[in-house]
């Protein structure tokens, strides 16, 4: 058994092996591998008795899933209404220009991924950005890149 299959097996063991576990299993794969590797998906399809096409459809429908590898540091810019009117776009632009990637992309050295999320629910501290699940509120443009690079 390859290492990858073993990692998938532990995920599958936590859930009932039927189609209703699909989303939970995908979430666990995403957490384990930081993205959804195609080979793992096809193994999961067999185990859950779900056609691969349906797995692809779910992986592209839900925003939490990524079919391409993601960076070590995940930077999320909140674009909820409050953050939007308080200048979330500026933060995004600063990051895009400093890291030389667009929103949704990962830097070629796999260090950074920049994502846009529609509201993280910390509107009172707008604009908000998240660096690896840590929230930063009232972020000014001049702080965005520094916070991101600090990790």
């Amino acid at each position, binding site marked *: 058994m390859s290492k990858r299959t073993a990692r998938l097996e532990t995920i599958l063991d936590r859930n009932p092996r039927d189609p209703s576990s699909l989303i939970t299993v995908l*979430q666990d794969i995403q957490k384990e591998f930081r993205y959804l590797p195609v080979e793992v998906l096809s193994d999961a399809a067999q185990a859950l008795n779900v056609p691969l096409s349906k797995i692809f459809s779910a992986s592209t429908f839900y925003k939490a899933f990524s079919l391409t590898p993601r960076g070590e540091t995940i930077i999320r810019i909140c674009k909820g*209404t409050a953050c939007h009117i308080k200048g979330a776009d500026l933060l995004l632009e600063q990051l895009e220009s400093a890291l030389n990637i667009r929103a949704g992309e990962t830097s070629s050295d796999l260090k950074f991924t920049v994502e846009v999320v529609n509201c993280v629910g910390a509107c009172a501290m707008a604009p908000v950005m998240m660096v690896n699940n840590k929230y930063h509120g009232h972020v000014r443009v001049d702080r965005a890149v520094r916070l991101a690079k600090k990790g």
Partner: protein
Amino acid sequence: MRIGTIDKLDKFRAKCERQFKAQKKKIIVCLGPGCLASGSDKILDEFKSVLKKKKIKGITVETVKKTGCHGFCACGPLVVIEPEGIFYAKVKKIHVKDIIEKTLLKGEIIEKLLYTDPHKKSKKYTDYRSIPFYKYQTRISLRNLGLIDPDEITDYIAAGGYAALAKALTKMKPQKIINEVSKSGLRGRGGGGFSTGRKWATCAKVDDEPRFVICNGDEGDPGAFMDRCIMEGDPHSILEGMIICAFAVGSHDGYIYVREEYPLAVVNLQRAIEAARELGLLGENILGTGFSYDIKIIRGAGAFVCGESSALMKSVAGEIGEPRAKYIRSVVKGVYDKPTVLNNVETFATVPVIIEKGSKWFASIGTEKSAGTKAFSLAGKVRNTGLIEVPMGMTLRDIIYKIGGGIEEDRQFKAVQTGGPSGGCLPEGKIDLPVDFDTLTKAGSMMGSGGMIVMDERTCMVELARYFLDFLVSESCGKCVPCREGLHQLLILCTKITRGKASENDLDLMEKLSKVIQVGSLCGLGQSGPNPFMSTVQYFRDEYLSHITDCKCPGRSCRALITYTINDKCNGCVACISVCPEKAITGEKKKLHVIDQDKCSQCGSCEVVCKYDAIDIT
């Protein structure tokens, strides 16, 4: 330990209360999302580590308590000293020693940490209950936030938790519970405003089994965070409401669907479920009454449309969250095609209070057709941003000026956006409207889940409509054409306006198209999708026309229509040069800087960092 009978629960409660009251002094650190974003977790740790080293009589590490959102996020991180209610705002790690040494040991108040009234600069408040932000609120669904530790079920029980469940299970028949909820006038807090009692009654009558009770914790509306705060800060109130509902409609299984962006809510809810199960308040044979009900958490995977009931139920079953036409209601055929009650977080959190205090008490609060209170997340360009709860019928003006403290920097109020992407914007002329389900809908907006975003003169309403359309286009599931294609075309036309490249015909076309989308879409996302455009064009038509005919943006925010220049107030501090992403600004230290207009992308970063008011926008 399992509590096998109601009597034992009462005894256990008495013990919890004694424990809770025994800790007279409490240092409460708010761990709500707002305070957390400004580092309140570090303050909590600091308190604990200082108290571990220092021996003070009557004050131990246990005196420090973490709670969910206290509400006043604008002043975060918040520390409250009970029982006096001393309110310290914007606390930093370096203040911790001072608070312990001065306030706890000597009873002194630290003036500089108190909240100061922005209108009367000298007025400082010691007790938080006297601050206008708190004074005008009535808290029902948020009753325990800021008071109890969400991880301690004993705290919830000491605060009167699970008493309503005991009452419902032993002293009330299912039908009586449904009647009580119906008579209270409680309407669904998720946005629809449908009578909760009626929903339960219909489900209970359907001749099919099993029945499900689901809590909708997919708070996707940008600008809304009250469900998040309840799930993180008072998870047991949701569980209690759900169990009561399950007993009333005869359900034995349920789910809480939590959106992907709220990982802490999942953790806290899971912990609460386990604690309730361990005490026998959830699971098999609840409190020895023979009634069984259990709850499982389902994590969303990032799809706004999954907040819609039929899409949510698909997603619960592990499928793609595409909504269906609802000619058969989900109370009849819901999850796995079985009868399902789906209510949102705030609704379930309110239920125990109604059962405990009675429908008359609840119906006496609020207005005739919108009973009770409503929680709002107040954000945007208002001074006192945060989480609030007010009786229905309070005017927008009172909410924004009395509780919200008015507009930041004393700018002019322009509009308030309620109801998220499904809602609309209300202008100054509507500011004296009472806030309830029907009045807001009549004015072209809606209650929605309760996001309230205040806008000042510097917000462009066309750009705001474009923002919502952009959001909806990316969140449309794509199943039906009017929503998928229609919203996309609306976005194209709206973007054209913000770039100064549209004609009045485009505006007419947008209005016609909006009506088609409203009528033709399958679910609420599409049907209400044009609302932000429709309400802004209704109240701010001039602003649209000024973009179209004069190519001017009155809010000075549409990039294609504005120019940034540097005036002679510039003292050459180079702050703007360092942030300009286009490297369009040049100049030497202590000398006037210049913006190269060919390179400038009008992002406005320079304006944000300029301390000398030296950036002009024309």
